[in-house]
């Protein structure tokens, strides 16, 4: 890990970098922000860890735990909300047997997130599956997509 982090630090020093840049790069490289990475940056750059933690927990982009293999994001922006986005969200929770938004399934295959507007309001409600947008989705349609991914996953593991 330290090689990856050293590389990020080098680029940070090159640019007029900041803590957010470091964290974005770390998340890009590692998928989340491990505590050890923060400790490493803090020591190397003499920036208190508390500042990193403050920034990580402020911005919704950052995650302190590894996320699932597939990210299911249900948009609950205004347009999606008025067109039933929350029903889709309820369905995903049920299908993945999760209790709250932001959780990852035990097998690490899925993370479910609610996002606040992805800027695709004219095709609401929108569901993002691994960053691909699905237009005018329904609860049933979402269930179908989840079934397909699950099937693919189990085929792969065979």
């Amino acid at each position, binding site marked *: 890990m330290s090689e990856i982090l050293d590389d990020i630090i080098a680029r940070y020093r090159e640019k007029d970098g900041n803590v957010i840049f470091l964290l974005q790069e770390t998340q890009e490289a590692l998928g989340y922000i491990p*505590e050890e990475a*923060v400790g490493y940056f*803090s020591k190397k750059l003499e920036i*208190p*860890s*508390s*500042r*990193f*933690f*403050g920034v990580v*927990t*402020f911005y919704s982009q950052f995650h*302190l735990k590894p996320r699932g293999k597939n990210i299911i994001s249900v948009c609950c922006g205004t347009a999606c909300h008025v067109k039933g986005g929350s029903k889709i969200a309820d369905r995903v929770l049920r299908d993945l047997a999760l209790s709250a938004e932001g959780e990852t399934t035990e097998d690490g295959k899925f993370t479910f997130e609610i996002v606040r507007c992805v800027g695709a309001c004219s095709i609401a409600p929108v569901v993002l599956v691994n960053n691909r947008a699905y237009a005018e989705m329904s609860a049933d349609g979402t269930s179908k997509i989840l079934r397909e991914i699950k099937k693919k996953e189990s085929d792969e593991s065979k």
Partner: protein
Amino acid sequence: MVKVTIDGKTATVPEGITVLDAAKRLHITIPTLCHHPKLSPFGGCRLCLVEIKGVPRPVTSCTTPVADGMEATTTSPNLENLRRTVLELVLSDHPNDCMVCERAGDCTLQELAYSYGIRENRFEGERRTYAKRDGNPFIERDMEKCIMCGRCVKVCEEVEGVGAIDFAYRGFKSKICPPFERDLDCEFCGQCVAVCPTGALTGKLWKQKGRQKDVREVETTCGYCGCGCNLTLHVKGNEVTRVDSKAETLNEGWLCVKGRFGYSFIGSTERLTTPLIRREGKLEPASWDEALDYVAGRLKGIKEEHGSDALAGLSSARCTNEENYLFQKLIRAAIGTNNVDHCARY
């Protein structure tokens, strides 16, 4: 210098100071909670809102610089209503346990609730609940009582230069904590405790040691390093129950871990409480007369046998000037030698 009018009183004040400071010069008190004169302005509690002529909405006096010709009003039904609302909101997310709180009587929030007479609260709802956990022996962190004024964060960063804590999360869930919500790991100077306006940060050593009644406060000078910080000892009965320092002292009220929390040795059960004389190789209790006569007799005997220069005194950089003076006077005038030194040589 600029001319400002606050609540009808006009004054000429230096450019760049805040409306709050200008009001202070005019002896006008504006309630504050997050403001601390030695820390950078924050503007979070919103209690110090004032109305300024020509500005459409109330502004925080702690952040707004004065301008020439400015006319400010610090109290009006609208402002008082806003302050009341703010206080009620803060109290709606604050444990109602002043009766057991270590800060009771020394708490800005309690003081404000009292002066605004807030008994009934229009607002109710979820309160932040945190499991108390902090493995350090000095600072009690009861974050349910935290009002997010940020003074502790700022003092740690701006004064102490450490940054052991910071704001984390956001909105209603925001809290002030060490990184990754671990136990506090810092210099334990307790500056954060000193600036906390509520019972969120208190000294662990203070616990159940006494409230205001019967506590005497005595000014003295710290007995540790050479900085010579001014301390206020809180004393109840024959026990020091708390140490802090006043903001107007040379050390500006700031202390280090030893000065602020390193006082319990005074009451240690291991203190020497009686003179000891070595008898048959063992140190045994003796009366003062016995001990003093013995000491004087032996010193006198050695002096008579070997001369004054066979004796020496070693004094301490931790004793007072007067004691040191008397000590060397004893060695020089009573024993008659210049064999006297102290450890400051090192």
